[in-house]
């Protein structure tokens, strides 16, 4: 399955998180969104500089945090970027494409969660 075909949200994860309370889920989503901005910046810088390891580190963190809060599609894009970042020499064009897909998936999944709070219930 390609990253873009991955379901936007992992409802099983979200349902389990919801057991901790709706406010907690929203707090986690907010924490994720703030961290995601920083990580995307780091990946962008890494691609521009051709630093695969920097991209790998940021993508690895992104993959784990997105999956932990049930944002399945961003996690899948981050996983693909993580794999590409670990291959030398870095394919900057492919990495840039994957980063764009990741950024789009983050926006779409956060919009889905915020626009449809019932997905968390």
């Amino acid at each position, binding site marked *: 399955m390609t990253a873009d075909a991955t379901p936007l949200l992992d409802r099983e*994860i979200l349902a*389990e*998180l919801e*057991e*901790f*309370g709706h406010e*907690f889920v929203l*707090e*986690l989503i907010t*924490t*994720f969104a*703030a*961290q995601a901005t920083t990580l995307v910046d780091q990946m962008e810088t890494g691609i521009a500089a051709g630093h695969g390891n920097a991209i790998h*580190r940021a993508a*690895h*963190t992104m*993959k*784990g*945090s997105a*999956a*932990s*809060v049930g944002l399945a599609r961003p*996690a899948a894009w981050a996983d693909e970027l993580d794999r590409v970042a670990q291959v030398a020499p870095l394919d900057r064009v492919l990495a840039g494409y994957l980063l764009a897909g990741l950024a789009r998936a983050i926006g779409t999944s956060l919009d889905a969660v915020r626009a449809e709070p019932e997905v968390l219930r």
Partner: protein
Amino acid sequence: MTVLLIDDDAVSLRMLALTVGRLGLTSATATTGAAGLAWLADHPECLLIVTDLSMPGMSGLDVFVAVRDDPRFAGIPFLVCTGSADAATVREAIAQGVRHYIVKPIKPSVVAAKVTELVAKRAAEIAPVVEAAAPVPLPPVDPVPDAAEASSDAARAGDPAEVPTDAPVAEVDPPQAVPSSEAEAA
């Protein structure tokens, strides 16, 4: 006594802290292995260490080796959270002595079960030592406990309705940002 949580991922760290809090335990959080070890040096009575494996600088495995090789921390259980799909990394961790790990994404129910198991074992190990070291006569018992004591007793009894859902968390990273007395308060 406190559970030490180490992870460079803010989301995972928050999730771990809340899960530990729901169990009625306090936690100290660090975003680097070095900060976690600095906190541990002042808190060798730590109940459990939970750490991410893949972190910049000092990895979770580096933290494990440092703890394993320091007699001050003998007996503190260690739980590794890994999102790494690299089988070689996991094999290396096991070869170094890691015995307990969970695979990310973090599921609170999985973390809670593992933390409960390891903390119970640790508590059972240190309880006889505590009793032997403190043969102090008990003071007279007040027949009417105050509200704080009653609440504390209920928490110890494991009544979910009385256990705080978000117990205090001491952030210890960077270590100099939080005075040790503040961490003690947690």
